[in-house]
């Protein structure tokens, strides 16, 4: 569905002078500074996939999405989306994609939400009955009923984002680009949006490319993740494999009665001990490829009188952080 090969995007801006009269000199300078926002990104997305496209601020995520949607022309490299070159066939490509840019809106600010939907239905040449049934469906799924006749200007961020999602999917594009669709939303609103996206994918096989800073979005929606940093892809593959590669250990936190014997559980390492209120909280870790979690638990409980035990979820946030800072 999406094929991108060696995408490069360079921006050139007039150079800023510093020093005396820097501001004035900048006005007349002909020097230009070239920055490379995307530096050789290759990416293939199959129909029906949901791919998380993540990376720190300024990594080149939005620039990539803008090239894929056809807004920006790549400096070099090849893009094909649904068999079209997006920037060359901008309007034909537009019919096959939906887009949500979390920081922007495609809704008409002055008018009730419904008017935006009406116009989009007409712009994309939707048949009336089809439009009506689809809008009714979305209204129910995203609970738009209470604010669909409110001017967009007066909507809350969560409501507006739901409106933007409907606007992007109304005409049933097979491909959906989501650029930070949950930015600034509360937990409930985020959950609602995630549910809707996974519903779209499950029901009609909508292909989704999602950029986000909220790792939970990716964990909830995507099996595959592409990590980009400094304009290049640093990881492309299974989310689970990424976790394993960067977090080779699982951690357990065990609370035991004092006194407890010298730590000697085979295959499980002691990381930290803290004593309080006649109990000790012990952090241990093990390699999940060598010992399964139930096995680790049974080995520990066999030796110690355990009061409480928690399995630490491997923290993807931490994995991503490791990748970003490792470079």
């Amino acid at each position, binding site marked *: 569905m999406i094929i991108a090969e060696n995408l490069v995007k360079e921006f050139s801006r007039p150079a800023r002078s510093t020093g005396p009269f820097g501001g004035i000199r900048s006005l007349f300078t002909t020097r230009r500074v070239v920055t490379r926002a995307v530096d050789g990104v290759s990416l293939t997305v199959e129909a029906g996939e949901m791919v998380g496209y993540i990376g720190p601020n300024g990594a080149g995520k939005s620039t990539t999405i803008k090239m894929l949607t056809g807004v920006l022309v790549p400096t070099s490299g090849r893009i094909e989306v649904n068999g079209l070159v997006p920037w060359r066939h901008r309007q034909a490509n537009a019919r096959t994609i939906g887009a949500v840019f979390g920081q922007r809106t495609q809704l008409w600010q002055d008018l009730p939400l419904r*008017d935006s939907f009406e116009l989009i239905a007409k712009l994309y040449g939707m048949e009336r009955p089809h439009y009506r049934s689809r809008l009714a469906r979305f209204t129910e799924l995203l609970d738009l009923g209470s604010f669909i006749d409110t001017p967009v200007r007066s909507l809350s961020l969560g409501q507006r984002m739901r409106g933007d999602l409907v606007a992007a999917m109304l005409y049933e594009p097979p491909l959906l680009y989501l650029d930070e669709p949950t930015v600034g939303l509360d937990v409930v609103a985020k959950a609602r949006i995630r549910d809707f996206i996974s519903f779209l994918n499950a029901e009609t096989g909508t292909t989704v490319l999602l950029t986000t800073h909220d790792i939970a979005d990716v964990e909830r929606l995507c099996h595959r993740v592409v990590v980009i940093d400094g304009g290049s892809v640093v990881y492309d593959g299974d989310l689970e494999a990424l976790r394993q590669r960067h977090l080779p250990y699982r951690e357990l936190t065990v609370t035991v009665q004092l006194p407890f014997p010298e730590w000697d559980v085979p295959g499980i390492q002691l990381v930290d001990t803290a004593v309080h209120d006649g109990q000790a909280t012990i952090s241990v870790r093990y390699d999940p490829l060598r010992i399964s979690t139930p096995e680790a638990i049974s080995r520990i409980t066999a030796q110690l009188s355990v009061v409480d035990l928690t399995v630490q979820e491997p923290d993807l946030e931490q994995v991503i952080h490791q990748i970003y800072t490792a470079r």
Partner: protein
Amino acid sequence: MRVAVVMLGAKSVLIYRSDVFIGVIGLALRVVLVYLVWRALYDTETSVSGVSLNDAVGYAILGAIFNVTFQPWHFSSLMSRVYDGNVVFDLIRPVGLLTLSLGQQLGATLAGFPRALIGIAVGLTIQAVPPPAGVVTTLAFVVSSLLGMAVALLCNLLVSLTAFWTTEIYGAIMVYHMAAAFCSGALIPLWFMPDALGAVLRYLPFSAQVFTPLSIYFDPSPGPHTLAAIGVQVAWVVLLAYLSRLVWKRALRRVVINGG
């Protein structure tokens, strides 16, 4: 689908009911003021530069109506869309940006038509505006007015397209707005301008917006020169449409190469 864009443009204006209401009051006030000023100016004269008081007052009233209808303060949503970046969505529509922008502008302008028509009707009823000379004059006036609107829409479109080069242009817009009102003859008929200035202004597209239809209205004997004036308007429409395409192509190049 284009009609839908136009309707939405009109709705965006009409939804602000108090704004519409204030617009009507503003126009009424302006009509009363120009009436008083021109009366005072003429004092005891019956004709200035060959223009009678009645024609001068009628012109001033129609000029005010044309000014508020064709040359509104917020003539396009394009500039704010460029400013806040929402213009990216215009680039991924199955319809071109020029069509979308012109549709929105046309809708916003048409939303002002009822007000304008009521204004003209009231002017005719209280005989502040002299009736048109005949059927031919009326017909030519309507055609010329619509062409004047087309010229105004295209001029405004061209100005809003400059937003792609400079994001902060509200000062320039104010100057443009005042210049357009003056140069189009909406404030003072070009008849009263010094010869040299009047001649220059007749060669600018602004006069095609307001002065051409109004001078047709007040022309006692329409003839080939009327057709010629309309022909010039058509030429302006073609030229400005071509220019808009050209500017938009450059703007698009700039956007797709260098981002927003």
